[in-house]
């Protein structure tokens, strides 16, 4: 009789212990799920940010702008046929700086550069220049920072063009030695780093970095 009474109590006790336990488990699962969701949402936000930044980068470094910078400073040229080698034999027999054909190589040079500003009077060029300066007004950029971006991109572009064809030994070495006379343009190239990493813009950068670090803490 007493055992029977205890039996009921046992059930009651078991319920008292197990039910909260079950609830605890399920609530923990729910909490974990919420956390996963939060992470997923953070990932989505990050993706969105990446997209936004990518778009901004593409807009700032749009091809018209890159070409203009190339015309002004970098002076990269379109590859000439001599820079493509058909086979290993051709690579072995390559004498980059000998023989005639040098002048030809330069004569065929095509430097991509923006349309000259002299054309600004024509109605067409007005539209074009309106584009090139700040095509879409996504955050005005400091000229220095922008140039840094462009320099990196243009540098990468010819390399990529060659690298995409593995069967061609890209004769990067074909570029002949530059004459000793330094033109103003060459000086501009040589001094590029200075203008890019001017104290003022560098200071701005560092300020931004510190601010971000503080926020992260």
């Amino acid at each position: 009789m007493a055992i029977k009474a205890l039996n009921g109590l046992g059930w009651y006790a078991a319920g008292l212990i197990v039910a909260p336990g079950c609830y605890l488990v399920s609530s923990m699962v729910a909490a974990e799920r919420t956390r996963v969701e939060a992470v997923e949402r953070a990932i989505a936000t990050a993706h969105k940010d990446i997209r936004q930044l990518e778009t901004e980068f593409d807009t700032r470094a749009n091809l018209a702008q890159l070409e203009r910078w190339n015309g002004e400073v970098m002076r990269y040229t379109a590859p000439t046929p001599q820079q493509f080698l058909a086979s290993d034999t051709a690579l072995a027999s390559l004498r980059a700086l000998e023989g005639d054909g040098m002048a030809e190589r330069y004569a065929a040079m095509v430097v991509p550069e923006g349309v000259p500003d002299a054309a600004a009077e024509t109605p067409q060029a007005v539209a074009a220049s309106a584009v090139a300066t700040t095509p879409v007004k996504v955050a005005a950029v400091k000229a220095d920072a922008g140039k840094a971006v462009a320099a990196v991109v243009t540098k990468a572009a010819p390399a990529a063009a060659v690298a995409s064809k593995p069967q061609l030994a890209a004769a990067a070495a074909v570029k002949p030695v530059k004459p000793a006379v330094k033109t103003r343009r060459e000086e501009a190239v040589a001094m590029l780093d200075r203008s890019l990493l001017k104290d003022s813009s560098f200071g701005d950068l560092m300020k931004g970095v510190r601010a971000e670090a503080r926020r992260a803490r």
Partner: protein
Amino acid sequence: MTVLVAPAPRNRTRPGNRQAGLAVAHVRLMILALLFAAGISVIVGRLLLLALFAEPAAATSVNAMLVPLRGDLIDRNGAPLARTIDAWSIGVRPDKVIGDKAELARMLAATLPGKSEAEYAKLLSSGARFTYLQRRAVPELVAAVHALGEPGIEFAREPQRLYPQASLGAHVLGYLDFDGKGVTGMELALDKQLTDPAMRGKPVALSLDLRAQAALESELSAAMTSFTAKGAAGVILDVASGEVVAMASLPTFNPNNIKGSNPEHFRNNVTQSVYELGSTFKPLTMAFAIETGVAPSMAKRYDATAPLQVGGFRIRDDHAQKRWLNIPETLIHSSNIATARIADELGKDRMESMFRKLGFDSRPDIELSGNAAPLWPKYWARTTVMTTAYGHGIAVTPLHLASAYAALVNGGVWRPATLRKIEPGKAPAGRRVISEATSARMRQLMRLIVTHGTGGKADAPGYRVGGKTGTAEVPGAGGYKRNQNVSTFAAAFPMDAPRYVVLVMLDSPVGNAQTFGFSTAGWTAAPVVNRVIMRTGAMLGVVPDETRDVNVADVTPLLWKAEPKNKPKGAAVAAATRIVAPGADE
């Protein structure tokens, strides 16, 4: 036990009644229990239903964050051409402005220099409920306006269409109206797909190659500036699939700033304008003649000694040779007389049917809207047959001609042009226009025009360019204008295994010092083709090779003066002494 409250004895239920009352209570209890059970089962059922079938709410919202409101447009390599971004917009509710309106107008004019102070004052006192001050504002500007501290000014993030390359490929992409609907270009053509919730998450790849597009547009605009041309058009077409790799029309506009653009610039000269394209038609006539057997041998000669008089019409040559010309010579010297004679032999029916096969009688086949209908001759008189042979009296869009040239060199199959990327091997079957053999012959002839003829300036070293110049006078009031022309150069490269057709057209160029005053296609359009091919050829997968070329050995003996203008090595001798430093002179 004392009964404090007891019902009056007369009200006491009698034992018999008690029994009945119990039964009633039981029934009531049962009904109540059933009601409870029903209520509980409804709740449990609903819970079960939710547990089994309901979608987790959060899952969709996370995914929805990544799906843009309107699908992206990308080029064939995946570079973005059009995207929808969340941009800041600044608006004002004039009735909620609490500060001094005149003061606010002054400050707005200082921060947002788009309008004057008076205009802002008028806007603030207009009584409108809401007005945009600036859409697509940069964050700095938003911060600056926010710093004005006016609660009547509102900021919101709105989805906006952004074209990262600005005016690049503007005519192909088109633009959106205020409500986000496509108005022209691919934005209109793909409107349904781009806005469909099921499909908009996936970017749509166009056939354009952004780099080629940039090179084409920059070269065209440089040429347009230096020759002070009215307009320019250019197209690069994949001959094997009909994909448009680049399409440019100048003057252009910036789709990011439609309000600030000249509406006249919205016209796409490649598909929405028709031109008499002149001598670029001669290779077509020649192909018809070879195909139909009218010209069984390349050595067949035609009388070009004197201008040809047909009725009241006189056909002259621009570079008169005053002798009998065979087929290659006719093309090299671009003889109208000899071409007209060939067309006369071909006759009306064959010329007409061949032009129809090339689609010259209907609007160009491409996804874009508003394509121009060609000016097809109403009546094919003998003179019509003769003049259409060299591109007068029939006006088509530049895209028509590019597609026709693709058919000429790709083995004879005409395919519609498309702006959608076609996966390799999925090209449409097309329709056969000329035979494989005729196409091979045309490649030789077109290469000869560049090495020996009028197209010499288009000979990009190593790319084996072949093509034809065309300088057509612009029709105006009372006949053709002598001093205005449409200069076209239609080319294909590399001629030994053609991959791309490049067509460049300049509308009314004016000769300058570099061209010694010439405004003909050989001086204006051909150099543009040269530079475009130099810049894009390698990117498009054509390896420049100066040791390879299409074999023209069986045709060159037929030329009276078989000395190529552009010798591969000979030219170097004269210039070898002068080494030009990079950047010294372009």
